[in-house]
């Protein structure tokens, strides 16, 4: 945290104080004249990195309230700058305060214009601060800080006059709704407490009359609250002098108690009421002040640097925190992975130990498993030629007129007709059989070429009867499907049929073909 230096500026002297955690110390006192500037320059140069707050307590401070049209943004800024320039010859130390809006149909904005009417007295001091590249936080005035002090002192009224005695004199600041409206500095001799108490009462009455006459205070507003800050030992005296009446309602506050309540831990003996104002200025850092941005250049640079650095550090710390959390997660994950690996290793060792009890294998268990599956598929697809010839032989025994000329037998995919349902649905794979997938399409297919003896080639009825009987016998063989029968003639009504019923064809032997299939494994 940067060190704070408070410069209490009066027409006679400049008091340089150091403020640190509620403790106020006087560093130096400079007479308000040209000769002191060199000394002040040395003082500032010795603490260039401190933050400087200039608190001005002079008579030449003007307050003026005016209503402006309802405008916003750049237009408002331009209007306010023009109004300031119209009112004040030198606007280098001037400010505007918004006091709210009129409730009427025009909804105008109430603005307080304030400026030091003699800015020349500040210029050497400000120039020194500028030259030393000091971080000037702002130029403030005692009236500007008064609402803060009033709030801290516990003044509850919405409009009141705060009366306090400083080195500069007796200050009367009129505060309305928490904002300064008017202020006046009168000369006073701090040594004569009784005179000050009397002056406080009389000046307050005059001030009330003035504020009413210029309509800052409404006539029908009732008695005006006067908050008087008095040293502890003079509270009784002030209460005696400052008596309430129909226009004024006095409230004498103990300055020392108020200082303590506001957090001011210690202050030099020589400081009067300004110690409370200096402390509030350092502690509360009010936003409104008089200096132009050029005067505050080094303060703004410092703030920008601080903001940048803070943002950078915040982002860095956030990232580091995030990284830390992730690394912790990663560490936990690695520990769990290590535990899993060790467990897997132990289980593998246990498995290897159990494997030693396995019978000796010609190959790995997976290889053996695949090999056996293939072997079973091979067995499933292996067909017996003897069996099918036996079935054929049985069918031929029942048909002695039929003589086989050729048999073509093969294992493979059956003709399409065999795959269509014919009342012999494919048998489901038995338990322990290899999976049916492709092997379901595998059949043993047999084509029988035969001839019919002891029949006239032109005797179509007899030939058809004998062949049908033979085919029927074949069909009775378990699992055997007759796919087609090809006779030497076609007796279908859709086809043409011709013949010769004579002696010439007696020597011809009628031949036919039968195509049958049997599912493998059936």
């Amino acid at each position, binding site marked *: 945290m940067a060190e704070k230096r408070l410069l209490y500026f009066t027409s006679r002297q400049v008091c340089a104080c150091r403020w640190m955690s509620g403790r106020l110390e006087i560093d130096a006192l400079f007479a308000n004249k040209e000769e002191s500037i060199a000394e002040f320059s040395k003082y500032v140069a010795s603490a260039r990195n401190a933050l400087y707050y200039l608190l001005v307590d002079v008579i030449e401070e003007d307050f003026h309230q005016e209503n402006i049209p309802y405008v916003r943004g750049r237009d408002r800024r331009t209007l306010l700058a023009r109004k300031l320039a119209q009112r004040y010859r030198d606007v280098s130390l001037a400010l505007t305060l918004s006091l709210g809006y009129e409730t009427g149909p025009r909804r105008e904005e109430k603005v307080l214009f304030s400026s030091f009417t003699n800015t020349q007295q500040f210029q050497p001091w400000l120039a020194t601060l500028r030259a030393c590249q000091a971080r000037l936080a702002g130029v403030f005035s005692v009236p500007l800080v008064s609402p803060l002090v009033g709030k801290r002192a516990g003044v509850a009224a919405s409009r009141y006059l705060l009366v306090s005695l400083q080195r500069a004199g007796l200050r009367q600041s009129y505060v309305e709704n928490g904002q300064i409206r008017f202020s006046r500095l009168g000369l006073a001799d701090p040594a004569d407490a009784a005179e000050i108490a009397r002056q406080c009462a009389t000046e307050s009455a005059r001030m009330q009359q003035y504020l009413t006459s210029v309509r800052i205070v409404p006539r029908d507003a009732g008695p005006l609250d006067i908050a008087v800050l008095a040293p502890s030992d003079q509270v009784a005296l002030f209460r005696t002098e400052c008596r309430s009446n129909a226009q004024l309602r006095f409230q004498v506050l103990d300055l020392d108690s108020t200082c303590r309540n506001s957090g001011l831990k210690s202050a030099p003996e020589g400081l009067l009421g300004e110690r409370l104002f200096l402390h509030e200025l350092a502690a509360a850092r009010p936003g409104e002040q008089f200096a132009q*941005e050029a005067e505050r*250049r080094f303060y703004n*640079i410092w703030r*920008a*640097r601080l903001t*940048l*650095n803070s943002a*950078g*550090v915040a*982002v*860095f*710390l*956030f*990232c580091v925190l*995030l*990284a*830390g959390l*992730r*690394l912790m*997660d*990663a560490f936990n*994950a*690695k520990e*769990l*992975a290590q535990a*899993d*690996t060790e467990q*897997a290793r132990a289980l593998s060792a*246990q*498995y290897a130990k*159990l494997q030693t009890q396995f*019978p000796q*294998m*010609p190959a790995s*268990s*997976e290889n*053996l*498993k*695949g*090999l*056996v*599956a*293939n*072997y079973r598929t*091979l067995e*499933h*697809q292996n067909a017996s*030629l003897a069996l099918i*010839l036996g079935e054929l032989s049985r069918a031929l025994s029942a048909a002695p007129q039929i003589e086989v*000329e050729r*048999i073509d*037998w*093969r*294992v*493979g995919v059956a003709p399409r007709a065999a795959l269509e349902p014919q009342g012999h649905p494919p048998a489901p794979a038995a338990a322990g059989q*290899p*999976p049916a*997938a*492709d*092997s379901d399409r595998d059949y043993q297919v047999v084509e029988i070429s035969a001839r019919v003896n002891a029949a006239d080639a032109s005797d179509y009825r007899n030939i058809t009867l004998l062949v049908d009987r033979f085919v029927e016998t074949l069909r009775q063989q378990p699992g055997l499907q007759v796919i087609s029968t090809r006779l030497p003639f076609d007796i279908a009504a859709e086809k043409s049929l011709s013949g010769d019923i004579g002696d010439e064809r007696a020597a011809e032997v009628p031949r036919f073909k039968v195509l049958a299939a049997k599912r493998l494994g059936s």
Partner: protein
Amino acid sequence: MRLARPDIKELRLSIVAVALLIALGVACAVASEYYLERAKNEREAAKQQRTEAQKRVEQVAEEEREIRRNLVFYKSMTDRGMAVDENRLDIIDSIARIKKERRLFEIKYSIEPQKPLQYAGVKPAGPLDLVASRMKLEMLLLHEQDLLTFLEELESSGKAYVSVRSCSVARMDAGIPALAVTPRLRSECQVDLVGLKRVKNP
């Protein structure tokens, strides 16, 4: 707070420092993310490894039973002579022996190069797998039983697993006297001699 261009120049060092800090922070975050992701992957892999190992141990009894079952089949293969490397001279000797013992007529054969068995449903099993040599047989027969007997004895000779894939038997006895001892049938068969072979790179 407004800053002029010269003021921003005053902040150069801070801007660089902040940029470095942010870059460093982001680098830390990215690196930690990378490590976390890697650790998570390692954890997943280890977890899977452990689960698989546990499953293996839990199924060890079943695996042993399965191995014993499979060994029964393997024994069946060895009993059929499949485990021995194919010796074509032995096969030819067997054919010659059967022909002589059964007094068969002419037998012509041709054996193709050995190949992996390619039947429907057969999948690569591993280094030890089934292989087949296709043999074409042309035989003259007195009776079809001669063919069946030949195939049966070739199988029982224990030189290989005999898988008959196709056979054609045709009558050729036109004009031959009924009692003459001469070939009456002609057969052509395709037979696969299936065995086991250890392949280096299946």
